[in-house]
Protein backbone atom coordinates (compact mmCIF):
# COMPACT_ATOMS: atom_id res chain seq x y z
CA UNK A 1 0.00 0.00 0.00
CA UNK A 2 2.60 2.57 1.02
CA UNK A 3 6.15 2.26 -0.17
CA UNK A 4 9.36 3.73 1.15
CA UNK A 5 12.33 3.88 -1.20
CA UNK A 6 10.65 1.32 -3.42
CA UNK A 7 9.94 -1.20 -0.66
CA UNK A 8 6.60 -1.89 0.99
CA UNK A 9 6.19 0.21 4.13
CA UNK A 10 2.66 -0.71 5.14
CA UNK A 11 0.24 -3.29 3.75
CA UNK A 12 -3.18 -2.20 5.00
CA UNK A 13 -5.29 0.93 5.12
CA UNK A 14 -8.37 1.76 7.10
CA UNK A 15 -10.49 4.84 7.54
CA UNK A 16 -10.34 6.31 11.01
CA UNK A 17 -12.85 8.45 12.88
CA UNK A 18 -11.45 11.55 14.51
CA UNK A 19 -14.22 11.92 17.04
CA UNK A 20 -16.45 9.58 18.96
CA UNK A 21 -19.82 10.01 20.53
CA UNK A 22 -18.58 7.55 23.11
CA UNK A 23 -15.62 9.73 24.15
CA UNK A 24 -17.02 13.25 24.08
CA UNK A 25 -13.86 15.33 24.18
CA UNK A 26 -13.26 18.61 22.44
CA UNK A 27 -10.04 17.80 20.63
CA UNK A 28 -9.86 15.35 17.75
CA UNK A 29 -8.75 11.81 18.49
CA UNK A 30 -8.05 8.87 16.26
CA UNK A 31 -10.34 5.87 16.56
CA UNK A 32 -9.64 2.69 14.63
CA UNK A 33 -11.52 -0.58 14.36
CA UNK A 34 -10.01 -3.90 15.26
CA UNK A 35 -10.77 -7.43 16.36
CA UNK A 36 -9.65 -8.54 19.79
CA UNK A 37 -8.92 -12.18 20.53
CA UNK A 38 -11.54 -14.45 18.98
CA UNK A 39 -14.34 -11.92 19.29
CA UNK A 40 -16.58 -11.97 16.19
CA UNK A 41 -17.47 -8.29 16.32
CA UNK A 42 -15.23 -5.38 15.49
CA UNK A 43 -14.58 -2.94 18.34
CA UNK A 44 -13.32 0.62 18.45
CA UNK A 45 -10.04 1.70 20.02
CA UNK A 46 -8.39 5.07 20.41
CA UNK A 47 -4.85 5.37 19.14
CA UNK A 48 -2.64 7.06 21.71
CA UNK A 49 1.07 7.23 20.91
CA UNK A 50 1.57 9.23 24.11
CA UNK A 51 0.37 6.40 26.32
CA UNK A 52 3.04 4.04 27.59
CA UNK A 53 0.69 1.06 27.38
CA UNK A 54 -2.39 -0.12 25.57
CA UNK A 55 -5.48 -0.67 27.70
CA UNK A 56 -8.23 -3.15 26.95
CA UNK A 57 -11.56 -2.24 28.43
CA UNK A 58 -12.54 -4.75 31.14
CA UNK A 59 -15.85 -6.12 29.82
CA UNK A 60 -14.23 -7.20 26.57
CA UNK A 61 -11.25 -8.58 28.50
CA UNK A 62 -13.59 -10.54 30.75
CA UNK A 63 -15.61 -11.84 27.80
CA UNK A 64 -12.42 -13.21 26.28
CA UNK A 65 -11.23 -14.75 29.54
CA UNK A 66 -8.25 -12.42 29.61
CA UNK A 67 -8.83 -11.31 33.20
CA UNK A 68 -7.66 -14.80 34.18
CA UNK A 69 -4.83 -14.95 31.68
CA UNK A 70 -1.23 -15.00 32.80
CA UNK A 71 0.14 -11.50 33.22
CA UNK A 72 2.42 -9.23 35.19
CA UNK A 73 0.63 -7.48 38.05
CA UNK A 74 1.41 -3.81 38.45
CA UNK A 75 0.01 -0.35 39.06
CA UNK A 76 -0.12 2.28 36.35
CA UNK A 77 -0.73 6.00 36.47
CA UNK A 78 -3.50 6.64 33.97
CA UNK A 79 -5.82 9.41 32.86
CA UNK A 80 -8.35 7.85 35.24
CA UNK A 81 -5.95 7.80 38.20
CA UNK A 82 -3.65 5.15 39.66
CA UNK A 83 -4.97 1.74 38.69
CA UNK A 84 -4.11 -1.81 39.68
CA UNK A 85 -4.11 -4.42 36.94
CA UNK A 86 -1.88 -6.62 34.91
CA UNK A 87 -0.02 -6.55 31.64
CA UNK A 88 -1.11 -9.32 29.31
CA UNK A 89 -0.33 -10.33 25.75
CA UNK A 90 -3.46 -10.06 23.60
CA UNK A 91 -3.93 -11.05 19.95
CA UNK A 92 -5.57 -8.34 17.86
CA UNK A 93 -6.34 -7.85 14.19
CA UNK A 94 -6.00 -4.48 12.50
CA UNK A 95 -8.85 -4.40 10.01
CA UNK A 96 -8.11 -3.00 6.56
CA UNK A 97 -10.57 -1.35 4.19
CA UNK A 98 -7.94 -1.86 1.52
CA UNK A 99 -4.90 -4.08 1.36
CA UNK A 100 -4.22 -6.68 3.99
CA UNK A 101 -5.51 -6.88 7.53
CA UNK A 102 -2.93 -8.23 9.92
CA UNK A 103 -2.77 -9.93 13.27
CA UNK A 104 -0.31 -9.20 15.98
CA UNK A 105 0.03 -9.98 19.65
CA UNK A 106 0.47 -6.83 21.70
CA UNK A 107 0.76 -6.00 25.39
CA UNK A 108 -2.37 -4.59 27.05
CA UNK A 109 -3.04 -3.40 30.57
CA UNK A 110 -6.16 -5.04 31.94
CA UNK A 111 -7.81 -3.44 34.93
CA UNK A 112 -11.24 -4.20 36.36
CA UNK A 113 -11.66 -0.61 37.56
CA UNK A 114 -11.71 0.98 34.11
CA UNK A 115 -14.54 2.76 32.29
CA UNK A 116 -16.59 0.71 29.83
CA UNK A 117 -15.89 1.19 26.17
CA UNK A 118 -12.46 2.80 26.56
CA UNK A 119 -9.84 0.76 24.75
CA UNK A 120 -6.56 2.48 23.94
CA UNK A 121 -3.72 1.45 21.66
CA UNK A 122 -0.53 2.69 23.30
CA UNK A 123 3.12 2.68 22.46
CA UNK A 124 5.04 -0.01 24.36
CA UNK A 125 4.64 -3.53 23.13
CA UNK A 126 2.23 -2.55 20.37
CA UNK A 127 2.64 0.67 18.38
CA UNK A 128 6.42 0.56 18.86
CA UNK A 129 6.44 -2.71 16.94
CA UNK A 130 4.36 -1.83 13.91
CA UNK A 131 4.64 0.62 11.04
CA UNK A 132 1.92 3.19 10.68
CA UNK A 133 1.18 6.46 8.97
CA UNK A 134 -1.74 8.86 8.71
CA UNK A 135 -3.35 10.93 6.03
CA UNK A 136 -5.37 13.33 8.19
CA UNK A 137 -7.04 15.00 5.22
CA UNK A 138 -8.47 11.69 4.04
CA UNK A 139 -8.78 10.12 7.53
CA UNK A 140 -6.67 7.20 6.39
CA UNK A 141 -4.63 5.06 8.74
CA UNK A 142 -1.92 2.97 7.07
CA UNK A 143 -0.48 0.04 8.95
CA UNK A 144 1.68 -3.04 8.71
CA UNK A 145 4.03 -5.13 10.80
CA UNK A 146 7.38 -3.67 11.80
CA UNK A 147 10.57 -5.17 10.45
Amino acid at each position, binding site marked *: MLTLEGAAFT*QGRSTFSDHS*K*EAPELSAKIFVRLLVGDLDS*AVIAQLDTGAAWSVL*EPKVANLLGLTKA*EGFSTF*LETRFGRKAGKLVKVPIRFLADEGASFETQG*TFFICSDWP*DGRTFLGYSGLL*DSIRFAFDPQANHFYFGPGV
Partner: protein
Amino acid sequence: MAKALRKPQEEETRSYTERIRELIEQDCVQGARKLLAEALERGEQEEDFPILQSVLGPAKFLRFVDEREPDRTPEFQWLKTHSKDYRGQWVALAEDRLLAHSAEIQEVHAAVKAMTLNRRPLMLYVE
Protein backbone atom coordinates in the same frame (compact mmCIF):
# COMPACT_ATOMS: atom_id res chain seq x y z
CA MET B 1 42.59 15.02 60.74
CA ALA B 2 39.02 14.96 59.60
CA LYS B 3 38.09 12.23 57.18
CA ALA B 4 36.30 13.10 53.97
CA LEU B 5 32.68 12.35 54.30
CA ARG B 6 31.66 9.85 51.71
CA LYS B 7 28.36 8.11 51.84
CA PRO B 8 28.86 4.45 51.05
CA GLN B 9 26.85 3.29 48.08
CA GLU B 10 23.73 1.59 49.31
CA GLU B 11 23.53 -2.03 48.40
CA GLU B 12 20.49 -2.92 46.33
CA THR B 13 18.42 -5.34 48.31
CA ARG B 14 15.31 -5.45 46.19
CA SER B 15 14.78 -8.16 43.61
CA TYR B 16 15.05 -7.40 39.93
CA THR B 17 11.32 -8.00 39.60
CA GLU B 18 10.54 -5.37 42.23
CA ARG B 19 12.83 -2.84 40.55
CA ILE B 20 11.37 -3.59 37.13
CA ARG B 21 7.85 -3.23 38.51
CA GLU B 22 8.78 0.18 39.93
CA LEU B 23 10.10 1.29 36.53
CA ILE B 24 6.94 0.07 34.81
CA GLU B 25 4.85 2.01 37.32
CA GLN B 26 6.87 5.11 36.45
CA ASP B 27 6.29 4.52 32.70
CA CYS B 28 10.06 3.95 32.28
CA VAL B 29 9.56 1.09 29.86
CA GLN B 30 13.02 1.36 28.29
CA GLY B 31 14.56 1.29 31.76
CA ALA B 32 12.52 -1.79 32.66
CA ARG B 33 13.63 -3.51 29.46
CA LYS B 34 17.28 -2.67 30.15
CA LEU B 35 17.12 -3.92 33.70
CA LEU B 36 15.51 -7.17 32.62
CA ALA B 37 18.19 -7.62 29.95
CA GLU B 38 20.88 -6.98 32.58
CA ALA B 39 19.35 -9.58 34.91
CA LEU B 40 19.16 -12.16 32.16
CA GLU B 41 22.72 -11.44 31.07
CA ARG B 42 23.88 -12.01 34.63
CA GLY B 43 22.09 -15.34 34.68
CA GLU B 44 19.67 -14.24 37.37
CA GLN B 45 16.48 -16.25 37.61
CA GLU B 46 13.24 -14.98 39.11
CA GLU B 47 9.76 -16.40 38.80
CA ASP B 48 8.32 -13.48 36.81
CA PHE B 49 11.09 -13.22 34.23
CA PRO B 50 9.29 -15.27 31.53
CA ILE B 51 6.14 -13.16 31.71
CA LEU B 52 8.21 -9.97 31.91
CA GLN B 53 10.10 -11.00 28.78
CA SER B 54 6.77 -11.49 27.08
CA VAL B 55 4.98 -8.27 28.10
CA LEU B 56 8.04 -6.03 27.84
CA GLY B 57 8.96 -7.48 24.47
CA PRO B 58 7.76 -6.20 21.11
CA ALA B 59 4.37 -7.06 19.66
CA LYS B 60 4.64 -10.33 17.83
CA PHE B 61 3.52 -10.35 14.19
CA LEU B 62 1.23 -13.33 13.65
CA ARG B 63 -0.06 -13.21 10.06
CA PHE B 64 -1.68 -11.27 7.27
CA VAL B 65 -5.39 -11.90 6.81
CA ASP B 66 -7.36 -11.52 3.61
CA GLU B 67 -10.25 -9.63 5.17
CA ARG B 68 -11.68 -6.22 4.29
CA GLU B 69 -13.44 -4.06 6.81
CA PRO B 70 -16.71 -2.79 5.29
CA ASP B 71 -17.62 0.88 5.06
CA ARG B 72 -19.04 1.64 8.50
CA THR B 73 -20.86 4.82 7.50
CA PRO B 74 -24.31 3.20 8.06
CA GLU B 75 -23.32 2.09 11.58
CA PHE B 76 -22.04 5.55 12.51
CA GLN B 77 -25.13 7.14 11.00
CA TRP B 78 -27.29 4.85 13.15
CA LEU B 79 -25.29 5.87 16.22
CA LYS B 80 -25.71 9.53 15.43
CA THR B 81 -29.47 9.11 15.31
CA HIS B 82 -30.15 6.53 18.00
CA SER B 83 -27.32 6.41 20.53
CA LYS B 84 -29.17 8.65 23.01
CA ASP B 85 -31.74 5.85 23.46
CA TYR B 86 -29.10 3.25 24.41
CA ARG B 87 -26.89 5.05 26.90
CA GLY B 88 -25.17 2.70 29.33
CA GLN B 89 -25.64 -0.26 27.00
CA TRP B 90 -23.59 -2.32 24.62
CA VAL B 91 -24.93 -2.36 21.09
CA ALA B 92 -24.11 -4.55 18.10
CA LEU B 93 -24.75 -3.05 14.70
CA ALA B 94 -24.57 -4.24 11.12
CA GLU B 95 -25.15 -1.51 8.56
CA ASP B 96 -28.13 0.46 9.87
CA ARG B 97 -29.55 -2.46 11.85
CA LEU B 98 -29.42 -2.83 15.61
CA LEU B 99 -28.69 -6.54 16.11
CA ALA B 100 -28.65 -6.61 19.90
CA HIS B 101 -28.38 -4.33 22.90
CA SER B 102 -27.93 -4.88 26.62
CA ALA B 103 -26.10 -3.50 29.62
CA GLU B 104 -24.33 -6.87 29.68
CA ILE B 105 -21.79 -7.42 26.94
CA GLN B 106 -22.18 -11.20 27.28
CA GLU B 107 -25.82 -10.96 26.20
CA VAL B 108 -24.98 -8.92 23.14
CA HIS B 109 -22.12 -11.23 22.25
CA ALA B 110 -24.31 -14.35 22.65
CA ALA B 111 -27.14 -12.85 20.58
CA VAL B 112 -24.81 -11.94 17.75
CA LYS B 113 -23.11 -15.32 17.83
CA ALA B 114 -26.49 -17.00 17.30
CA MET B 115 -27.13 -15.00 14.11
CA THR B 116 -26.01 -15.77 10.60
CA LEU B 117 -24.61 -12.56 9.21
CA ASN B 118 -22.89 -11.62 6.00
CA ARG B 119 -21.23 -8.61 7.57
CA ARG B 120 -19.03 -8.51 10.65
CA PRO B 121 -20.91 -6.56 13.35
CA LEU B 122 -19.55 -3.52 15.13
CA MET B 123 -19.94 -3.75 18.89
CA LEU B 124 -19.52 -0.78 21.16
CA TYR B 125 -20.54 0.73 24.45
CA VAL B 126 -22.76 3.80 24.33
CA GLU B 127 -21.85 6.27 27.07
